[in-house]
């Protein structure tokens, strides 16, 4: 498939800084922000400033942001209410010998907000919490094995990072069992085979994998999982790090109609301030307390103040409804543009966290062309990872993006000829 020539933003300073970085930082930019996951040459590498749903890269290019920092931004960058709460806490204290009172305030607020939550444990990143949840489940059940869904992402701890990545050994996965998404019977058989050995089942609320179409749970899937877990004494863990607070403020279990025993949150809960949480049912609280798990910055007060302000504001403005509305407008617009050009676009996932594929392009060549062309025109679309909408996106932003998409679709069309 030919890549048609196109005009658009240039990324000269990004490339220069990346070259400097490559001399002193492994991979220059590592992990999920690595350019290897995008289309280098068509994407910025470094951010200069951000406000609302927009940011500016170091070349001075402006973007309407549909990644939202890979999820954390949900109310908008430089959000006045959140930043004010953080600044007020900063003026008092942040990282000291003890937690601030804000820790208890935030925990109480979350226990009231999230139906299954009787307690809350705080840390920094989503991966801190998925690992913590598995430890708590093991402590609670006195069992070793954890069941995960193949290709679900739970962070970068060795137990959940694929064998083949640097430093990961086959032994790191000794007690990890895998089943396919939506395969309830497969899970049932696995439980039968490993009866009384499985501590927990952990999964994302729906199948949102990088490079793939997002797949929603089949009817009865989550209820079926819940039922098996209950009858077999298996702790049901929901990894809501990516989707949490975008589908429902009570967690995605509430959205899909099931009750996890533990839910892991991060990303959106602090609108960009570094914080994560694991909430759980009372029955697991004692076991959770027995897990020795901590970090130098986990009790920092500023992100907790920011998180409390974020959660309150999300509720106050009914952010979930607005984010869904903006997502629908974007996706419907893209499908319509595709139709106009005779190119069928297949959207997947919930509108708040959408992704698109081009029909009959399983290898994502068209995604790579289309998303990079939209990005070069001023709307940041990731070619391989689900996107994120925020409460800061307005109709005018979506319309501007659809204009970028219209122009980019012509390049896609040209690449097909």
């Amino acid at each position, binding site marked *: 498939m030919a*890549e048609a020539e196109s005009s658009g933003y240039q990324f000269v300073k990004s*490339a220069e800084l*990346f*070259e400097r*970085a*490559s001399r002193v930082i*492994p*991979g*220059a*930019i*590592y992990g999920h922000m*690595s*350019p*290897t*996951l995008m*289309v*280098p*040459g068509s994407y910025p*590498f470094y951010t200069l400033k951000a406000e609302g749903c927009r940011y500016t890269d170091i070349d001075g290019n402006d973007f309407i942001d549909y990644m939202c920092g890979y999820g954390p931004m949900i109310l908008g960058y430089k959000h006045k209410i959140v930043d004010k709460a953080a600044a007020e806490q900063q003026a008092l204290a942040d990282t000291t010998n003890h937690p601030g009172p804000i820790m208890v305030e935030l925990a109480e607020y979350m226990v009231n907000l999230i139906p299954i939550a009787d307690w809350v444990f705080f840390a920094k990143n989503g991966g801190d919490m998925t690992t913590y949840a598995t430890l708590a489940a093991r402590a609670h059940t006195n069992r070793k094995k954890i069941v995960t869904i*193949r290709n679900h992402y739970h962070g970068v701890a060795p137990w959940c990072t*694929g*064998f*083949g*990545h640097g430093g990961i050994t*086959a032994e790191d996965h000794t007690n990890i069992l895998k089943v396919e998404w939506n395969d309830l019977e497969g899970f049932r058989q696995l439980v039968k085979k490993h009866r009384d050995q499985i501590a927990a089942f952990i999964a994302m609320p729906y199948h949102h994998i990088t*490079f793939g179409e997002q797949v929603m749970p089949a009817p009865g899937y989550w209820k079926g999982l819940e039922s098996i877990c209950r009858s077999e004494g298996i702790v049901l863990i929901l990894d809501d790090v990516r989707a949490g607070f975008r589908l429902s403020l009570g967690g995605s279990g509430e959205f899909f109609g099931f009750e996890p025993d533990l839910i892991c949150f991060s990303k959106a809960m602090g609108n960009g301030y570094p914080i994560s949480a694991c909430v759980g049912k009372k029955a697991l609280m004692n076991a959770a307390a027995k897990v020795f798990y901590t970090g130098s910055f986990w009790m920092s007060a500023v992100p907790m103040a920011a998180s409390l302000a974020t959660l309150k504001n999300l509720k106050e403005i009914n952010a979930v409804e607005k984010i869904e509305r903006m997502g629908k407008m974007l996706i419907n617009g893209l499908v319509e543009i595709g139709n106009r050009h005779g190119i069928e676009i297949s959207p997947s996932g919930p509108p708040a966290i959408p992704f698109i594929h081009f029909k009959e392009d*399983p*290898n*994502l*060549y068209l995604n*790579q062309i289309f998303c990079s062309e939209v990005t070069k025109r001023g709307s940041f679309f990731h070619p*391989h990872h689900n996107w994120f909408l925020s409460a800061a996106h307005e109709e005018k932003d979506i319309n501007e993006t659809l204009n970028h998409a219209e122009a980019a679709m012509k390049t896609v069309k040209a690449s097909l000829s």
Partner: protein
Amino acid sequence: MEAAKELVLARIHLRAIVPLLEDISEFDSETQQIIKGWSKPIQFQLAGEDVAVTLSFREGKVFALRDRINKSKITLTFSNAETLNAIFQGRSKKSPRPNLTGLFHLKKLLQVDPLLKRIEYYMKPGEKLLGDHNSLEQCVKLTLYAMAFGVKEIGEHDPEMKPLAEHLPDGLVEIRVKDGPAVHITVKKGAFTPAKGRAEKPSAYLEIADMETAWNMLQGTLDQYAAIGSGKIKIRGLIPLIDGINPILDRLSIYMAD
């Protein structure tokens, strides 16, 4: 090295490295001189295993078959994988055992070692060779071929990599140097079919900008992530296929490090 890995390395030597003589004989005058007048095939095999390669000689060129032939006149048998690897890596002065018919071709047998040394000449080149663009291109091409066929042996036989390979997406990945040599590998249900040259419709491709970058990548001395970011390496299409093969390539570097 544990026995299972010795066997994988032996497979790499016989099925990915020795067949390079096919390509070397195309341009290397010393190889052409050694095999001048040869017509009888030579079969290299590992005792007790279904691993062999047969070299045939026609019109001054080598042809490699990654298998046995029924009527091999000269067969050289390595007693075990460990010995085979030690011989190929220059850690042992032993020689493979010839068959009875082979004993009648002693003069030729004495030339087998110098013939195999021509592979090492290009696979572990000196500064002079690397400094010449055309020679560098030959080294890159040969290493690329060895890589493609080595990936098959590791993906299908390494005890740790096999489970990983079995979960790779099916597809066809092409690895190429811009305006230079290329290989492609078809992956289907954990089985690998490597081939030389470009593919018609790859599911994914990895394009290396120049020979120097390619050589560094193939030697494992390149920060590939930074190289992709800077545009020295371009990847497109079904990236999980490339990502999935990458650990197998890393494992190949470890096998070939000695």
